[in-house]
């Protein structure tokens, strides 16, 4: 039997669920086809097929889907609604499946995470493979194994991230959604440039999610966006050990527009806010990063 090919766009959901997908689907006769790191063509195609006002990350996602159209049997697009009422997501995560389904004519594998309604990731993934003819017991076992492996991998990443806090270099906390930070066009260049300036970067998403989630209450008592909670929850966790904070968001990110503004008003540390749009020039951003790092380094010497 030929392998079933499932396409995964390297954007949005990929950065949250790549490991669980990889370890889970590896247990079956399924091949995952992941679109390449974002390049100019992907982005341009994304812009072409999207609505002008969509956020850059969403345009990027559409570009990745377009790349995969003729290369796989199905495209995997989950819908993430909420992890309980206190942990909702951006409305784009609710709508992606339906938007893509209407823009492109392609076969889509879809599951829904809505814990308020008792729809979990486990149920969704198991449903997908049982529809391909695998047994439920086998799928359940595969999911359990996958979760274990993901946890091991994450624990290691988190350990490394925390180790960086003892570094002698200037330490910068980088806050942003992983699908922006690690994207080839959006965040990678920026990260490279920050590292060039002899600094240590601590990533906001590489902490234990439940710790950052609860800690976010210290900064915003009513916040209910899961991903933003996890981002800003890292601030109280490491505030005493870092020298500055850099925020990265795409234009016009809906939750970031409110949450980050509130952070700016409450923060006592120096911060820099970088907003990336689709007509982006690195030069302006480089200048701003450089002067920001100069300022926080200067501050250290004067003390």
């Amino acid at each position, binding site marked *: 039997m030929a392998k079933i090919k499932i396409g995964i766009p390297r954007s949005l959901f990929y950065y949250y669920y790549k490991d669980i997908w990889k370890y889970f689907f590896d247990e079956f006769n399924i091949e995952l086809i992941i679109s390449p790191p974002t390049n100019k063509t992907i982005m341009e195609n994304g812009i072409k097929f*999207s*609505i002008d*006002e*969509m*956020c850059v990350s969403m345009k990027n996602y559409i570009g990745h889907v377009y790349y995969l159209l003729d290369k796989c049997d199905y495209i995997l697009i989950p*819908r993430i*609604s909420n992890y309980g*009422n*206190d942990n*909702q997501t*951006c*409305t*784009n995560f*609710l*709508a992606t*499946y*339906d*938007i893509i*389904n*209407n*823009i492109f004519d392609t076969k889509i594998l*879809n599951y*829904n995470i809505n814990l308020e309604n008792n729809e979990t990731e486990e149920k969704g993934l198991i449903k997908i493979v049982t529809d391909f003819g695998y047994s439920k017991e086998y799928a359940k076992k595969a999911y359990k194994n996958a979760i274990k492996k993901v946890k091991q991998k994450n624990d290691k990443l988190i350990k490394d991230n925390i180790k960086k806090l003892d570094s002698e270099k200037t330490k910068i906390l980088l806050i942003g959604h992983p699908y922006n930070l690690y994207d080839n066009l959006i965040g990678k260049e920026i990260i490279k440039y920050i590292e060039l300036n002899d600094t240590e970067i601590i990533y906001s998403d590489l902490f234990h999610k439940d710790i950052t989630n609860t800690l976010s209450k210290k900064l*915003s*008592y*009513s*916040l*209910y*966006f899961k991903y933003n909670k996890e981002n800003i929850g890292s601030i109280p966790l490491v505030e005493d050990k870092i020298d500055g904070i850099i925020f990265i968001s795409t*234009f*016009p*990110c*809906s*939750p970031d*527009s*409110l*949450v*980050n*503004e*509130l952070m700016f*008003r*409450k923060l006592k540390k120096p911060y820099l806010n970088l*907003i990336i749009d689709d007509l982006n020039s690195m030069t302006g951003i480089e200048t701003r990063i450089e002067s920001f790092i100069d300022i926080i380094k200067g501050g250290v010497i004067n003390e």
Partner: protein
Amino acid sequence: MNKITFPLVGNYRTPIIYLFKHILECEIVEPPPITKKTIELGNANSPEFVCTPFKYTLGTYIEALEKGANIVVQFGGGCRYGYYFELQEQILKDLGYEFKYVNFVTKGVTNLKEIYLKLKEINPKLKVDKLIYYSFITFKMLKYMDRCDDYIRQNIGFEEKKELENINKEMLNKFLNVKGYLDLRRTYKKYYKKLKKVKINKPKNCLKIGIIGELYTVMEPFANYYLERELASYNIEIKRFTNAHYLLIEKRKKGLKYLKSAKKYIKYKMGADSHDNIGRCKYLCKKKYDGIIHIKSSFCTPEIGSMAIINKICKEYDIPVIFFSFDANTSEVGIKTRLEAFYDMIEMRKKNEKLLSRH
């Protein structure tokens, strides 16, 4: 002394004042009508790419706080509207105002007990039966208001003398001082009759347009640059779905109905009102409206998502659709020009249709 104020949406100041007056027993600082100055105040103090309702309500708060209010009320919603209040509170405190902020709907969930406790904090003497009685009257008032509004919207483009709006205004003034439910009903019936008596000169085959979109921009005429009034001047019948009664009571049931009716296009709720709008768009297409106008505030994420799908539906049914995005800096002239062009286009289509049917 407690002085309470609230955000403005359309005509709905009347029911809010009525309710607060009867249950809170405190002074009500009526926010001044939204003007250019309100938007400028809101815009200057808001983050860069937040949606416009944030800016409008913030501007209103600043103006009301200047007038001496010390309690500010907000009603959260399903999208990021539900998170407005914490940031607005911080911004206003940074500006140096001292006040209490009360948010009645958090995280898109209406918890009746919580609302009662919050009201009790403002007025410790509040009794449950009183609250229920006056809430009931207020909901009825909303229903009557929206019914009159619907009638006016269908006919305002065709009245001989400009009377409808004045009668409506008079009715709202009377509503403010009604003594109980029976009085309210009597007043409503009297004025509804009056509305019906106004001479309407409506051709059978008039142009019909449906307005859909983000709720605040749809309901607050200042936020959409009096789009409905502009359309009425072209002699167009207008159908609008979103109103307070829909949002508070009907949405729970009808929202699912809309979702079902459009299941060819969407499978899930897409946040806030966007799936409703897709269902409505399909409804308008099926009923063969002459055009659809989709309006929203800039950066409204759920509606941006729905635009892609609305585009597709309208293409399939061959119904013209136009999208407007309103911001504090939108130019009124630009919108008028686009609207005029849209009107010319649908009028021409109608004429061509008639010619074709004659042959």
